[in-house]
């Protein structure tokens, strides 16, 4: 019974922005999950999502696996010595009662050794292992853009107005 509810939740999540997973032990939700579409000739992909920790203590993600990829790693992009760098994280700690973002330019799951690069509209099943040994799985749709980029699109309309002014230059 419990399982079918969870399955329904997962199914709903694929078609809406509803929580992708709700576990009954650790109160954790992974929302707005997506795998960024990449060229078929790419060698890696990245997954992004928000983690909601409703607990009064931190949650530690220690491992990640993804269906269709030989290897998956927790990564953090950043700047060092004037260069963009990326470093594998042994674990990622989600502080108590927070929403933690895995987003472009910051934390992300790096998906390596693909059997085939996941195409738009496909779904990648990503499983996380927590420090207490619990595992949670999330089905992540593959998209070229996430909703935030769509918001950028609306900004483009504003920019058009700016551009009209700039023509005087």
């Amino acid at each position, binding site marked *: 019974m419990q399982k079918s509810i969870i399955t329904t939740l997962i199914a709903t999540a694929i078609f809406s922005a509803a929580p992708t997973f709700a576990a009954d032990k650790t109160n954790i939700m992974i929302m707005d999950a997506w795998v960024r579409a990449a060229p078929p*000739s790419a060698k890696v992909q990245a997954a992004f999502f928000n983690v909601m920790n409703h607990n009064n203590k931190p949650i530690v993600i220690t491992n990640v696996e993804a269906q269709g990829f030989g290897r998956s790693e927790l990564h953090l992009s950043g700047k060092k010595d004037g260069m963009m760098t990326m470093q594998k994280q042994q674990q990622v700690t989600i502080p108590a009662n927070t929403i933690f973002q895995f987003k472009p330019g910051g934390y992300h799951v790096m998906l390596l050794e693909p059997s085939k690069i996941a195409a738009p509209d496909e779904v990648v099943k990503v499983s996380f292992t927590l420090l207490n040994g619990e595992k949670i799985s999330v089905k992540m749709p593959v998209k070229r853009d996430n909703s935030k980029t769509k918001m950028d699109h609306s900004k483009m309309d504003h920019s058009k107005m700016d551009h009209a002014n700039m023509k005087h230059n």
Partner: protein
Amino acid sequence: MKKSKVIIAAGIIGLSALGAMVANHIQQPSLPTFTTAYAQPQQVTLPDVVLGNNQQYTSTLFKDKWSLVFFGYASCPDVCPTELYNLNNVASIMTEAGKTMPQVVFISVDPQRDSNEMLTTYAQFYNDKFVGITGDTSEIDKLVASFGVIYQKTFLANNGQYVSVPYSSPIPEAQRESYLINHSSRLYLVNPEGQYVAAFAPPHSAKKIAEDLLKL
């Protein structure tokens, strides 16, 4: 008497300043005042290097059109795709405004793993007009030096620490396929004469980049 000398001196200084301004203006006839791009104090004439399968000279690649140049590598999961998606958004803004989008040239600094064929399909996935290209490290290094780009190979050593080395340095056998590359992530503007004239520093906003490009 003394006063007149001062006036003459001031005149000379004034004239030379005017001369410098005129010279500067002649040197950069087509460069508008940018909002976010950092204009180079002087255009940097790029070395003519050979890239791509057809051994194309960069003087030909950059000739007669504006170009936006970004250095990266195809095994880069976050920064490079973010940049290329962003540049596609810039292209949309330019198209909507009825302006010509500069040619986007994605140059891989990782010829050991990236071929020109795969870079072509890689770049075109983001926008079918984007150019993806690489060349011998000796050629790429001449080009990166002119832009002030730095890059290095980095890999996880047995002790769990990242080790960064120059790109051509030997690295452990087990890391030959899985190394990462630290790289500068500025976006460079090259004029139709093939000169590097300005740079956009990250983080890159499509809207802000387009604002400056629309002034060209």
